């Protein structure tokens, strides 16, 4: 079991937190782009043989997206749209290869975390957003490496 919905949901959380730092006018286009691409890639489908690459791409994207919050400069138009497109592609790919359509309904709304993140950025606890983003990166590094275990941690055992 590798979590069909959770990896894309974590990627969407990363994008949502990045959007909290982006100019407000870019939030809606970025969300639209990510959603469209996710649905498009899911509709087109991904060969089952690409599963390892797709999961690796998703986890690497979570790390890069989360760490990009630590750049000193606020994200500009190009960076926001590039991360949104990247998120859409990998979310759609992971759900296509190892999930169900309902997983998209679970993952994509996670981008809405930008709302509480923006609120938090207006408070003295604003650096909490960056701390949580670093947790996301750490989760992605661990979860992305676990399949290398010699034991079958991500495969269903006889109880599943």
């Amino acid at each position, binding site marked *: 079991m590798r979590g069909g919905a959770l990896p894309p949901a974590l990627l969407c959380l990363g994008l949502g937190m990045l959007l909290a730092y982006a100019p407000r006018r870019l939030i809606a286009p970025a969300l639209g782009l990510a959603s469209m691409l996710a649905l498009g890639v899911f509709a087109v489908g991904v060969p089952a043989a690409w599963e390892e690459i797709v999961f690796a791409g998703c986890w690497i994207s979570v790390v890069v997206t989360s760490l990009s919050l630590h750049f000193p400069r606020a994200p500009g138009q190009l960076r926001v749209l590039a991360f949104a497109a990247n998120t859409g592609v990998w979310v759609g790919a992971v759900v296509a290869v190892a999930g169900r359509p309902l997983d998209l309904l679970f993952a994509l709304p996670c981008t809405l975390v930008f709302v509480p993140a923006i609120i938090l950025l207006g408070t003295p606890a604003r650096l909490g957003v960056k701390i949580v983003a670093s947790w996301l990166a750490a989760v992605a590094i661990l979860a992305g490496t*676990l399949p290398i275990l010699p034991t079958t941690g991500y495969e269903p055992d006889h109880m599943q």
Partner: protein
Amino acid sequence: MTPNRSGQSPWWAACILLALSLMPTVAQAHDGTGLVGGFISGFLHPLNGPDHMLAMVAVGLWGAILGRPLVVALPIVFPIMMAVGGAMGIVGVPVPPVELGIGLSVVVLGGVIAFSIKPADWLAIAIVAGFAVFHGYAHGQELPSAADPVGYSVGFVLSTGLLHLIGIAIGFMALRRGGLRLVRGLGGLISLAGVWFLFKAVTG
């Protein structure tokens, strides 16, 4: 009922059987399986070892003493480097004796709190990052195969992060009330505990 050959009534045996049947033992072999099981298993993992727990709280306490930007930088650096160490542990990259590194981390982190040492930002980050690799490495080697990896990772990192925040909260609360001595005392106790962990690691 007629007594059996040993002189005891089979009625008692029936009662015992009935009592035992009312106390079923749930199979424990698959603890930690599935997303929720993986999360709980990962969340509890850092709390099971006092050496890990003390080191993580100490990172938060030290951050509270150091103030900005390190109070934020240290809890950001630790989980990421711990995850890198975890990955190294999973892959099996050779590192110096891990238990010594963990024991030493508790001694040093407790010591810098006890003596209220405020090094340059880069040095504090390097110290915490270096020790985080040891802690992650140990966890990486112990990762269970039954747990859901994503749920496990989320629980594991969340638990670690919360321990940092607990350390920061204790530090801030104490410092606000002029309790630097209290924080330094806690650091001293942590360091002493670290000496014990180090002793155990050396003597095997």
